[in-house]
């Protein structure tokens, strides 16, 4: 009975942490680790941490192995002979290609399978609604079920008549074994087919439980939707189960109403779990490294569509940059956003604008309030259409990949629409709904700046605002001062320099550096969850040392420093400024940021040497400010300090008025060292 082939080997390593209680146990564990390291490359092995995870992996690997070794024969065996069907098969042969294409390389969704299994085991009949937005893998899930269990099925599609209910019924009936057919002859009319369908299901159910999988009913044209009542019985007899996979929306509600007298359950196919992504990737890319796998997980953020696109791309181009958008996805995105270019899509464009410029995920009610559109316009007009390209977190949405965002910003929307989106958010933040949110404190200044409303920015980002913000968020207040600096330089209004300096001065006098630092420390403790940068900095794998439980934690620094960098694109490359101002704290950081923005604003690459000279001219003023900062700790009167600042801002105003051009790299060091300045004429 044994085949000629070598046994298929699957090895599983439990990675649950434990503490060896003796030297012998430590040695044993060490041998396991060495064996794992030396495991033959042709062998398949997987890590797991819980018995339930092991069970899921094992089930998946065994069924996958058997599926490939023993391909299903149910379709061929059960199809009626040509004599019964007028000379050709009623089964849609193209479906086999679709099923094979989706089931090949399929893995994961163990929770959905368990859910389905529980329902089938604990009920005598019923409907199972598997719902999910486009790209969540509904067809792949159905294909896997069909392949694995040989269920009777139909995958609706827009081509080849697969969206015609009459033909669908013929195809479904043709898959039921002749021994279970209520009648061997297939009638032509829809009503007669529907009658035969219901009678056959009753007959089948009495003999043996039957499961029917229907995918993509929402692909049916409007006129065919009416005919769905012929396909979906209002009552099911014992032993009959229908699994329907479709998108959430009106059709799902209508079908649920239509079948409300039958037991039914709903299951949402949401984002893929991390372990499901791992299964999918490892199955297709057997040599993938742990680091690459983690990067795929981070890039895909649970989107099956994204994972699949990445796998396909990496198969063809193993050196594909994982931070880039897979080309197939960009094509899909182009098609998905096509509706925004049609006439009468102004509302849609406004919502797209919001999603493009928002600094936090937005809920549908928030988008409604900002745009004054209806819930339906926001939900069905944009969110629903773009659902595969959005990340949903607690009913809020944002683009899940930077490339999508860039696509909308550069290819779909005009720059004035983006300004308008910033203005919409800023207006909402200043209104009753927005003012109570953290978003108001965190990003009002940013949105006012980006909308070009410099006057509004000066009015809103006042000393009381900054004082309150610094008490709540500590040094984050520097972001607002940053915005004021940028607005000042953009407007080229020298008087604003004084305002900016005054803001810093008043803020420090009103709140005090100690309180700001304390607020930052509290905020740092509260935000203990790791951010993206933290995850990147931390080692991807915890080292395993027998006898040691290892934990890794990153803690952000609280103090702000005055180092800065600016990169400004130029015609022939870019200019880079890297600098540092003395000390730490609010004023030092202000100086650093001011110089950075000043560099960006005034850079002219035509005469680099002259630029250096101009920067040095500016650095002199920085020294004046530094003197003032140092004076904070010296026995010097407040009046005197204030005088220094005033003198600095006054001289800087003169500088701006003279419109001297800064043309080169800036460096503000602890001792305000002068930079090498070649002859300006060279």
């Amino acid at each position: 009975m044994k085949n000629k082939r070598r046994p298929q080997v699957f090895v599983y390593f439990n990675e649950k942490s434990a503490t060896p209680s003796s030297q012998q146990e430590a040695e044993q564990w060490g041998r396991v680790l060495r064996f794992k390291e030396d495991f033959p490359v042709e062998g398949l092995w997987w890590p797991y941490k819980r018995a339930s995870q092991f069970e899921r992996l094992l089930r998946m690997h065994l069924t996958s192995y058997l599926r490939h070794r023993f391909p299903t024969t149910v379709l061929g065996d059960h199809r009626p002979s040509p004599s019964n069907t007028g000379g050709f098969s009623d089964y849609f042969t193209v479906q086999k290609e679709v099923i094979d294409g989706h089931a090949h390389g399929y893995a994961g969704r163990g929770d959905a399978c368990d859910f389905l299994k529980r329902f089938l085991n604990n009920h005598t009949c019923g409907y199972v609604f598997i719902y999910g937005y486009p790209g969540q893998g509904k067809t792949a899930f159905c294909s896997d079920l069909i392949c694995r269990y040989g269920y009777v099925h139909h995958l609706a599609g827009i081509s080849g008549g697969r969206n015609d209910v009459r033909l669908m019924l013929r195809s479904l009936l043709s898959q039921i074994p002749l021994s279970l057919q209520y009648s061997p002859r297939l009638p032509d009319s829809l009503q007669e087919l529907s009658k035969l369908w219901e009678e056959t299901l009753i007959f089948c159910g009495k003999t043996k439980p039957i499961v029917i999988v229907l995918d993509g009913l929402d692909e049916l044209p409007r006129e065919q939707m009416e005919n769905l009542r012929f396909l979906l019985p209002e009552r099911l007899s014992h032993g009959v189960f229908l699994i329907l996979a479709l998108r959430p929306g009106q059709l799902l509600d209508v079908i649920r109403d239509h079948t409300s007298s039958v037991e039914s359950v709903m299951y949402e196919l949401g984002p893929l779990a991390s372990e499901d992504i791992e299964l999918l990737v490892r199955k297709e890319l057997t040599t993938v490294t742990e680091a690459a796998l983690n990067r795929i997980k981070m890039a895909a953020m649970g989107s099956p569509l994204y994972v699949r696109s990445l796998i396909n791309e990496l198969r063809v181009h193993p050196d594909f940059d994982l931070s880039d958008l897979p080309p197939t996805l960009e094509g899909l995105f182009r098609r998905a956003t096509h509706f925004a270019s049609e006439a009468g899509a102004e509302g849609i464009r406004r919502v797209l604008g919001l999603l493009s410029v928002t600094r936090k995920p937005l809920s549908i009610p928030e988008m409604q309030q900002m745009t004054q559109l209806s819930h339906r316009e926001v939900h069905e007009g944009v969110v629903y259409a773009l659902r595969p390209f959005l990340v949903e977190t607690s009913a809020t949405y944002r683009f899940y990949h930077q490339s999508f965002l860039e696509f909308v910003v550069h290819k779909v929307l005009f720059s004035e629409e983006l300004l308008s989106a910033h203005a919409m958010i800023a207006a909402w933040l200043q209104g009753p709904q927005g003012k109570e949110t953290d978003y108001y404190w965190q990003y009002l200044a940013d949105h006012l700046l980006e909308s070009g409303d410099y006057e509004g920015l000066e009015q809103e980002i006042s000393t009381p605002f900054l004082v309150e913000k610094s008490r709540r968020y500590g040094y984050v207040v520097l972001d607002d001062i940053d915005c004021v600096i940028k607005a000042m330089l953009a407007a080229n209004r020298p008087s604003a320099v004084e305002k900016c300096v005054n803001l810093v001065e008043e803020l420090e006098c009103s709140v005090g550096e100690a309180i700001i630092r304390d607020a930052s420390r509290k905020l740092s403790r509260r935000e203990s969850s790791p951010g993206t940068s933290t995850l990147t900095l931390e080692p991807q794998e915890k080292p395993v040392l027998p006898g040691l439980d290892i934990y890794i934690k990153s803690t952000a620094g609280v103090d702000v420093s005055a180092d800065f960098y600016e990169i400004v694109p130029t015609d022939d490359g870019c200019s880079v400024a890297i600098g540092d101002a003395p000390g730490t704290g609010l004023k030092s950081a202000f100086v650093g940021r001011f110089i950075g923005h000043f560099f960006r604003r005034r850079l002219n690459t035509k005469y680099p040497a002259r630029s250096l000279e101009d920067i040095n001219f500016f650095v002199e003023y920085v020294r004046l400010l530094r003197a003032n900062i140092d004076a904070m700790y010296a026995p010097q009167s407040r009046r005197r300090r204030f005088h220094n600042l005033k003198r600095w801002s006054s001289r800087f105003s003169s500088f701006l008025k003279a419109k001297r051009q800064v043309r080169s790299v800036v460096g503000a060091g602890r001792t305000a060292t002068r930079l090498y300045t070649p002859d300006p004429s060279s």
Partner: protein
Amino acid sequence: MDSELQRLRLVVASPSDVSAEREIVPRVAEEINSSFGTDRGIRLEVIRWETDAHPGFHPSGPQGLIDPILRIEDSDLLIGIFWKRFGTPTADSLSGTEHEIRLAFEA
């Protein structure tokens, strides 16, 4: 009817500290047999030392008794499971489990 099924030998190889996982294997196999296996006419037969081996003496040690029962070279599938124990050394390997996995690769 049962004799028409194609039988596939599935051998479980592991040290003794993963007994929970060893119990899972026959359960999953039975589940697959009753659904997928019925449709395709196949049956997984799980072979484990705790249920299939018997006590005795062998010149090559205990593994010499187990090998003819497991018949790894005649098997279709081998499931290896490890946690923190590697197992007891045999004549040619650092553990019985390693010996069984190597047999499968060399078959």
